[in-house]
């Protein structure tokens, strides 16, 4: 395949470094045997995409077993690699469905600071509104400056009511009252925003557990979904985040944000292998419409710059 055509297919937004990488990979794989040096380049490519050294080595090792020494073009090698990664990701590409049996279906949104929880709630609320559902939003971040106002603006954009409490109010109490109101009003979904918290702060993690305990006094099966919002820029620490949040609040699925940037979010591959949690959606921008279903194939191709 001609170099020009290859670059034409490189996504516009690729960072310069990734572009250079693409160049060198192309150079390596045009008319070339898949030898040790070539495999090492592949491994580097995966590491640069945040898959982590261990997962990168493992994927390349299985590649070596099946394809070592064969004459292979850059196109084939990349497609095959993307295929291999897509196969790991396919089982976790599961949409988030709202169960109409629950009224409301309670969605608790959690994660470390600044990953995009509030924004994702705004996006989800809009998409559910567009499906004809009535979501009710809860401004459970009573801690951070202007967090409530931020969600209120999202509520306006999505055409949803936002339930708020006093600054510094107990988030669990607020969530409890909101659930009562949502039940009374027959809302379809109750979307609860929470303050960002680092997973290694046990007191803050306890607070989250308290929200869940309190919700269960009204609906023993609530929350029906616990979404962990991850920032695609995050490296290997995402593994610790998922492990602890899952352990503490039974995360049911992930949303990966900021995939419109130069970060590839490769740690999702390691997460899929280690935890097998569904990846419900990806964030690709700051606007209300910038939420997409997680597509294993597309994501895998993005990872290796196809």
């Amino acid at each position, binding site marked *: 395949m001609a170099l020009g055509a290859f670059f034409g297919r490189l996504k516009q937004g690729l960072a*310069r*470094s990734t572009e250079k990488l693409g160049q060198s990979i192309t150079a390596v794989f045009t008319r070339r045997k898949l030898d040790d040096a070539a495999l090492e380049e592949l491994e580097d490519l995966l590491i640069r995409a945040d898959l*982590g050294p261990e997962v990168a080595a493992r994927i390349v090792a299985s590649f070596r077993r099946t394809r070592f020494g064969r004459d292979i073009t850059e196109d084939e090698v990349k497609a095959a690699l993307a295929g291999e990664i897509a196969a790991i990701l396919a089982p976790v590409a599961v949409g988030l469905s709202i169960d109409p049996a629950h009224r409301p279906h309670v969605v608790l949104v959690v994660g470390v600071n600044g*990953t995009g929880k509030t924004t994702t709630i705004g996006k989800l609320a809009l998409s559910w509104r567009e499906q004809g559902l009535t979501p009710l939003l809860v401004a459970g971040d009573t801690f951070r400056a*202007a967090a409530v106002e931020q969600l209120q603006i*999202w509520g306006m954009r999505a055409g949803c009511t936002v339930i708020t409490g006093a600054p510094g109010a107990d988030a669990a109490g607020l969530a409890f009252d909101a659930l009562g109101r949502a039940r009374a009003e027959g809302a379809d979904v109750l979307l609860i925003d929470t303050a960002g918290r680092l997973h290694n702060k046990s007191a803050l993690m306890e607070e989250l557990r308290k929200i869940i305990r309190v919700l269960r006094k009204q609906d023993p099966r609530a929350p029906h979904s616990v979404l962990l919002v991850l920032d695609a820029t995050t*490296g290997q620490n995402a593994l*610790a985040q998922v492990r602890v949040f899952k352990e503490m609040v039974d995360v049911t699925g992930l949303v990966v944000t900021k995939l419109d*940037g130069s970060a*590839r979010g490769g740690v999702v591959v390691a997460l899929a292998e280690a935890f097998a949690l569904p990846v419900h959606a990806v964030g690709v921008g700051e606007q209300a419409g910038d939420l997409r279903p997680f597509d294993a194939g597309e994501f895998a191709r993005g990872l290796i710059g196809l």
Partner: protein
Amino acid sequence: MFDALSEKLSGVFDRLRRRGALNETDVAEALREVRLALLEADVALEVVKDFITKVRDRAIGAEVLKSVTPGQQVVKIVHDALVEALGGEGAVPLNLNAPAPIPFLMVGLQGSGKTTTSGKIALRLREKLRKKVLLASLDTQRPAAQLQLAQLAERAGVASLPIVAGETPVQIARRAMDTGRREVFDVVILDTAGRLSIDQALMDEVRDIRAATDPAETLLVVDAMTGQDAVATARAFNEALGVTGIVMTRMDGDARGGAALSMRAITGAPIKLTGAGEKLDALEDFHPERVAGRILGMGDIVGLVERAAETIDQQEAEKLAAKMARGKFDLEDYAGQLRQITKMGSLSGILGMLPGVGKIKAQLADANLDTSILKRQAAIIGSMTRGERRQPDIIKASRKKRIAAGSGTSVQEVNRLLKQFDDMSAMMKRMNKLGQKGLMRHGLGALMPGASSGRRPF
């Protein structure tokens, strides 16, 4: 999850018992482990490669000291090189050498902590340097961003630029500088909207802001959890703006923080500050030594000690220290410690800061214990009599059974607690003997059991 590098290296070198100068094979094998450790810590690949080349040149032919193993020698070389690459000793202060009002420009990706850090810097300048600070939000993108900064300004006790709807970021920047001049502010902090390094329109916009204000500091605010993308971000922001300093936020997390090395290597700009919490006083100077240890998975004991000092009640700590000095540290004190530790953060976070605990940590992770173990331990201690807590030595088989039943645990768990308590008292005695100076001189390994036999250099 992450074994301490020194542990891994001692594994590599268990097979290489010979002394003398380090040869190429020794070094190559050790550096493979170092490479892995750096990658696991999220140091960007190209930075890792450069770093490894540098260390290889230094290590080959280096004399192995009598008292240490080749593995330890390599770790020492790596550690020193890392400290150097992170900026050597000492923190670089913010540049206040400019005519007032001095503009500071805050830039970075979405959600990295720019607004919060603006508030923190304002508080620090006001409190420590008695500067008159104006905070101005140029963020017309994110909902309620300007309000967020205004609220933080109030908390920091500094002024914020009145919000005028409909202005562009460049217009706000100009108005901020005008206000700064007219109302005689010392420093004007310009907080900008988060932007992706590949968003040409927004990168052009921040370039215009820079041109309009000529900031004395252009601070790139970066999340300590950042992965390989650190390179792309650092390069793009540096090329567009000429970054003068880096702020690493969320250092209160348990990320290894390899992005610090990547950022520093790519931009050449010093890491000036670190964020260690959400509150406005959680801003610290950057300490290369600590971050080097953290990146290598060797623990950040200085950070641990400092964090402990912050959370632990001073009087209580002094009482405790006195008791420890007299060898009178008992289980009641340990229960108190447990409460303090829960205040400081989860066990794995704390353990992550301790050297040489990679294994324990992995076991904890496997057993899903984390914080629940603290509660169980507290329950065990709660089921002891006062006498037993004061004098754990008297706890023999029958007492153990009773305590286990009373706390809903097992005799094994009681044993484990007692063993841990023993280890802890031993470590404390050692820490006492060394004192702060000794700690620095002999390194962290001096605390670990078996250190006298020279197993760990740090």
